[in-house]
Structures are given as structure tokens and as C-alpha cells.
């Protein structure tokens, strides 16, 4: 039951394991229209897994996922495309949905790669390809955007511009965004809700809350927490190797 009309996707105590090893466990979060939810955490903490659970790519999961939209744009962290396919940027843009030419052009212009429209996808640089991926995801005007490190490999000025674009899209389209990012400055300045993962949800809340949280400091180090706050807390639990909470 969707009691709140604005909820797009909701995870309840969700988890996923491969061969009896939990990749992530006990994640509860929700993404609402017009809001940006960001997942942070160290490598292997289950950020991408959580995104894939939310998207329904992983099906045999623990817990529950409720999805209230089918209009989804996805930028995966890793994408391996087989170059046995002759595929131009233009063909890639209409991969999952047929779009009008003007809409394709508009999206490619927004991410600054309109000049690459007729190029072969295999000839693009990493950063250019990343911009095309983002353009494709936003071009279909989705209700939910899932962006897994959307600006990796993009140059410094481009990175800032693309994050501004993501923020703008969230406002204009009133779509919900589930973002995975390593850039803590961006996370802290543009996000409505932060979920800090380390195999489980370490802490979550507004960027301010999370920055003040001691868990966050343990994971990201003193410096990261000084980005927004010098506030200090006491440990309330210790982590095991798998990222679970160690019981005393």
C-alpha cells in the first residue's frame, strides 16, 4: 500500500546474498518525487547492490521492494558493451524507449555531447561515454533516476556542471533520484537524504545529521567529517569484517 503518493520506490529491510555471502543486508530507504537520496560508503559496502535491488535487477532478495513507477532511467556503474554491435550514440539513446529527434538532441546538449551524436559508441572516451549514459537516462524524462557514480571519468569542471544538471533535473522533472557518489562535497550540498552503507545501514538522515554521526567519521576519516562538521559522538557499535554490527 502506498500511503504516501510521492513515494517512487521503497525498500524494507532489503538484503541480497550470493553463495551465502551477504552483499548488503537490512536496508530500508525510500525515494520520493523531487528528492535526491544519496548512498555513500566504502568500496564493497553494497551501494551498487542496493541500487540493483531497488531496480529489480536482483530478484531473489530478502525483505521487500515496492516500486510505484515504471518510468525509470538508470546509469549503471559498470557497463560492458559488446563491440560486435555497430552502435552509434543515436542508436544507444533510443535503446529502451523510442524518442523524438528533438528530445534526443536536447538531452545530448544538456550533457554537452551533442557533437558526438553520429559517432560510434566504441570510439568514445570514458568521460564522453559517461555523459552519453547520463543523457540517455534523462532523455526519457523518468520519474525515478538511479545514478551509480554518474560522473566517473568526467573532467573536473564537467563534474561540477553535471552535478548541477542532476540537481536541476530533479527540480524540473520533479523526479526522484537515487544517487551513488564518492564526492562528499556534492553529496553534502545537493542531497536531501544520505544513507551511509557498510554492508548494512550505518547511519542515515540529512547530510548534516550524517556528517555529525560518529559512524560516518569512522568510515570516511576525520577529514571527511570536517567537511561539514566538527561535532563528535561516541561509538555505539563495532564492525565485523563483513560489515555487520558486532554484538558485545
Amino acid at each position, binding site marked *: 500500500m502506498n500511503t504516501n503518493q510521492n513515494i517512487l520506490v521503497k525498500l524494507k529491510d532489503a538484503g541480497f546474498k550470493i553463495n551465502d555471502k551477504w552483499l548488503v543486508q537490512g536496508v530500508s530507504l525510500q525515494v520520493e518525487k523531487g528528492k535526491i537520496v544519496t548512498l555513500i560508503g566504502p568500496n564493497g559496502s553494497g551501494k551498487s547492490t542496493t541500487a*540493483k535491488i531497488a*531496480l*529489480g*535487477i536482483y530478484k531473489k532478495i530478502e525483505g521487500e521492494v515496492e516500486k510505484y513507477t*515504471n518510468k*525509470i*532511467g*538508470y546509469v*549503471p556503474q559498470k*557497463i*560492458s*558493451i*559488446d563491440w*560486435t*554491435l*555497430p*552502435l*552509434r550514440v*543515436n*542508436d*544507444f539513446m533510443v*535503446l*529502451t*524507449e*523510442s524518442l523524438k529527434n528533438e528530445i534526443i538532441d536536447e538531452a545530448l546538449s544538456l550533457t554537452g555531447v551533442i557533437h558526438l551524436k553520429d559517432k*560510434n559508441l566504441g570510439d568514445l572516451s570514458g568521460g564522453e561515454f559517461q555523459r552519453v549514459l547520463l543523457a540517455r537516462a534523462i532523455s*526519457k524524462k523518468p520519474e525515478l533516476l*538511479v545514478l551509480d557514480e554518474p560522473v566517473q571519468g568526467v573532467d573536473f569542471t564537467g563534474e561540477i556542471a553535471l552535478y548541477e544538471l542532476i540537481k536541476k533535473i530533479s527540480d524540473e522533472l520533479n523526479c526522484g533520484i537515487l544517487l551513488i557518489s564518492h564526492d562528499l562535497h556534492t553529496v553534502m550540498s545537493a542531497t536531501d537524504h544520505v544513507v551511509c552503507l557498510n554492508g548494512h545501514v550505518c547511519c542515515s538522515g540529512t547530510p548534516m545529521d550524517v556528517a555529525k554521526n560518529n559512524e560516518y567519521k569512522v568510515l570516511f576519516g576525520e577529514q571527511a567529517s570536517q567537511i561539514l562538521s566538527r561535532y563528535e559522538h561516541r561509538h555505539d557499535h563495532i564492525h565485523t569484517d563483513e560489515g555487520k554490527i558486532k554484538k558485545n
Partner: protein
Amino acid sequence: MFDDFFIRALVAGIGVAFVTGPLGCFVIWRRLSYFGDTLAHSALLGVTLAFTMEFNIALSVFIISSLIALTLIQLQKRTNLPGDALLGLLAHSSLAVGLVVIGFLTFIRFDIMGLLFGDILAVTVDDLLIIWVGGAVILLILKLIWKPLFASTVNYELAEAEGLNPDRAKAIFTILMAAIIAISIKMVGLLLITGMLIIPAAMARNISSSPQRMVIYSIIGGLLSVILGLFTSLEFNTPSGPSIITAALFLFILSLFNIKQSIKLKN
């Protein structure tokens, strides 16, 4: 008009080429040429079944090939053997069992060469009907599943995440593969069907820059191969299947020269 065996063969071959063109592109894109081979080898079992039960050949080949495809999926789930080993196992054992069964059927005269390499003399008006109606149905279904199938060929997770149901498209495509083998077995023969699927598509890959163009060139390549091959077959009394595939190879070699030329032009 269809009285002449050669006209019948030509019409049949053209019908087959229209379907193998687009399907062949997917066989190349999804790296399924070995899978196509396995289905084609198992077709012999389907043919023997048709003879023993006095059943329609195309239908019986279609059923057996689909069963083999399902068996493969089950084996992949239940064993730790790699995919190519399973394909080899199914391909050769179904071919062997088919030949053994033929050995028992001494009361029927079998044209094994015709089965393995195609026989234009054997194409009847009924076969034409099966090829053209069956082919039209295959193409229609392929058009319907094009979006999810193509998207998941490019990237499975994108297709799944954005709600295109790639697993269903893949299952339907497997059935289409069994169907094209069933309708083209008489023309090309079961040892060469995969060649008819992949060689024109490979030729098309060499000269095309977009997926749509590759499909169109692949169809054109298949049509030319059929026409060239059949005329050669008539002229020099060579078996139809190998003649068609040799013509396709000839076109493929030509397409290689085209690449060299375009590279020179760029420089």
C-alpha cells in the same frame, strides 16, 4: 508457376533469406553461433521422428529443437559444466542418436546427403507455404520483441532496470531460432544452417555502421547468396546448401575489401 523445381527452390530460398538476415544478426551479436549449430544438429532427430511417425518434418524439427533448447537451459542450471561443453554434448549426441535411429529405419530410403546439405529437388509447394507463412510469423514476432531483445543484447541490466523484461524476450528468441531451423532445413541442410545465419550477417557487419543497416545488408546478402548459389547449383549440378554458403562466403570476402578501401579513403 511453381511447377518448375528451380522456381520453387528460388522462392523457398528467398523466403528463408528474409528471415535468416535479421535472426543471423542477433546470432552474431549475442554470440549464439554454436547454439545455432546445436539446434541444427538436433534437427536430424526431428527428421527421423517425422519419418517414423509420418508427421510433418518442419513441425517435428521445430518441436525437437525447442526441446533441446529447453534441455540446455536445464543442464546449465543443474551442472557446473561450461556452456560450450554442454552445447557440444547436445549437438553431437543428438546427431549421433539421429543417425542411429536412421540405421534402424531400413524400410525407408533416406537421402542423408540431402538432409545434411540441402536438396532443392525436394522442395514442394507445401514447403513453400511453410517457409513463407512460418517466415512471416517469425519476422512479426521478432519485430514485436525487437526492443527488449536488442536492449538486453546491448546491456542486460539496463533493459531489466528500465522494465523491458529481457528474460521473456530471450526465451521467445530461442523458440524463433528453433523455428527458422525447422523451415530452412530442406533448403540448406542441417550442417549448413548456421552458416546461412551467420555468414551474411558477418558480411553485413563489415559494411554497416548501425544495427538497422546491418539487418538490411544481412538480408540483401542472404538473398544474393541464395540466388547466386542456386544458379550455380543448377549449372554445375552441385548440392544446393554448399553452393549457397559458398556464395555467401564469396560476398563476405568482397566485404573485407570494402573495409580496406574505406580505411584508405579515411587516410
